[in-house]
């Protein structure tokens, strides 16, 4: 069987798949980010490249993906949000991604524009993430664009989406995931997870869906960060015990990573496909977390 990407192959053939995440620079130079990509290259199958994350302007995702792949050989997962582009721009970028050799795409609605550094800008949301997944399916399967016009060569990308197991109520999120899977979403990366019980319940609720789940893993670097996330990040549930341990720890970063290794060892048996490791602006900690998970032998 041939696979579109290494990520698809890993999800089909490996017991446990690990992806990472890089944020393009707020800079006209890619060099620092390439150093980050090199740091994690041997630890992950592929890395997400975010799309103006939290609505802040950074380098174009598409160009960043291309430069990372070309200059480091690390496979990328091209994140695309519906906030900054209408259906014309989204489709032309998807065609370009394919032409540039990018093989994976992760479709997101996108944070709202007032949350970032250009709060006065006009947001787009011509499509929502489910509609963009529908558009990609149509492009890939039928060779047609959204308007029904023929594409000479259709794109061929391995398609993923996001999911948040900690939301309350959870049923709308499950229904949304059902819609995404119906649009040929093959993998879903989750919001940061700290409470394995939350995931266990969620995995039972989505057992009818044929989709590979990569669980979001972000080591907590301090008790303050943990409290901030609980207050500000939807669906993030952090057990009090973790916050206590961080407070008491001498080396908080190491304690944070250790707790993530423990979480991974618990969730590894829950039918998940792997983990997605995210540490904003800290590729070194992505590498360190993955190495700790692998060294522990839990996966």
């Amino acid at each position, binding site marked *: 069987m041939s696979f579109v990407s290494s990520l698809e192959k890993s999800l089909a053939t490996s017991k446990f798949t690990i992806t990472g995440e890089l944020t393009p620079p707020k800079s006209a130079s890619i060099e620092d980010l390439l150093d980050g990509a090199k740091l994690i290259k041997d630890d992950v199958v592929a890395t997400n490249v975010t799309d103006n994350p939290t609505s802040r302007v950074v380098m174009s995702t598409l160009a960043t993906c291309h430069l990372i792949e070309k200059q480091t050989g690390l496979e990328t997962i091209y994140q695309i949000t*519906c906030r900054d582009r209408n259906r014309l721009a989204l489709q032309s970028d998807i065609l370009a991604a394919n032409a540039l050799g990018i093989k994976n795409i992760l479709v997101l*609605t996108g*944070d709202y524009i007032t949350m970032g550094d250009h709060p006065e800008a006009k947001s787009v*949301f011509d499509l929502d993430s*489910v*509609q963009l997944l529908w558009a990609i399916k149509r492009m890939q399967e039928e060779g047609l664009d959204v308007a029904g016009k023929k594409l000479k060569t259709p794109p061929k990308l391995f398609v993923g989406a996001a999911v948040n197991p900690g939301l309350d109520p959870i049923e709308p999120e499950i*229904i949304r995931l*059902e*819609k995404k899977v119906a649009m040929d979403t093959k993998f879903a990366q989750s919001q940061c997870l700290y409470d394995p019980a939350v995931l266990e319940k969620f995995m039972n609720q989505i057992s009818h869906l044929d989709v590979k789940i990569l669980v979001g893993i972000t080591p907590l670097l301090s008790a303050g960060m943990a409290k901030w996330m609980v207050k500000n990040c939807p*669906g993030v549930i952090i057990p009090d015990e973790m916050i206590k341990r961080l407070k008491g720890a001498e080396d908080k970063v190491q304690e944070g990573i250790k707790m993530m290794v423990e979480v991974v060892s618990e969730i590894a048996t829950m039918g998940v496909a792997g983990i997605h490791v995210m540490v904003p602006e800290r590729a070194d900690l992505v590498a360190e977390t993955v190495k700790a998970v692998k060294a522990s032998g839990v996966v």
Partner: protein
Amino acid sequence: MIITEKKTLEEVKESLKTSKKVFILGCGTCATLAQTGGEEQVKEMAQLLSDKEIVGTVVAETPCDKRLLKRDIRPVSEAINAADTVLVLSCGVGVQTLAELTGKIVIPGLNTKFLGMTERIGEFYQRCRACGDCILDETGGICPISRCPKGLLNGPCAGHMDGKCEVDREKDCVWVLIYKRMKDLGQLDKFREFRKPRNYQISTAPQQIVRSSSK
């Protein structure tokens, strides 16, 4: 109704900087109900602009209806003619209708905010965006176009928390409201349906309706 909000007095004064003789026109319909352009607010504005010569005031019944506005300004036409500027306390439609009718320099005294529901005096909530393609039958009678900042059509984004929206934690996530309402109504099957991208062609500005029977 159309919900309006008063511009600050500083902004109004800045717009009237070069004006000497000012006529003030209010709105007897939406702006009266919103307490932004009724008899009381017109009177108050006349007092606040004490450094200008206020040549006259009127609250027109419905300034957005050209026929009614024409009728209501006829008795004050001399005063309007004497004014160099008309300050209009209505939505943007009334401001433009007055300009079209009189050719005068017009200054808006209000900002037009949204199509809204009045909860009680001074409390208004956006309920419609005049998108031109009503889908309230598909969403439990709750509008995601006007009440979800992203205008999502296929359920909530993953930004809701305690039922509140990621953009403003004081406001309800409308898709959580829609989910709960449709669940109560036994309409979750409809909630699950995929909604295709919207057709924005039908709402290209400027919109107009000219029924053949009115030609």
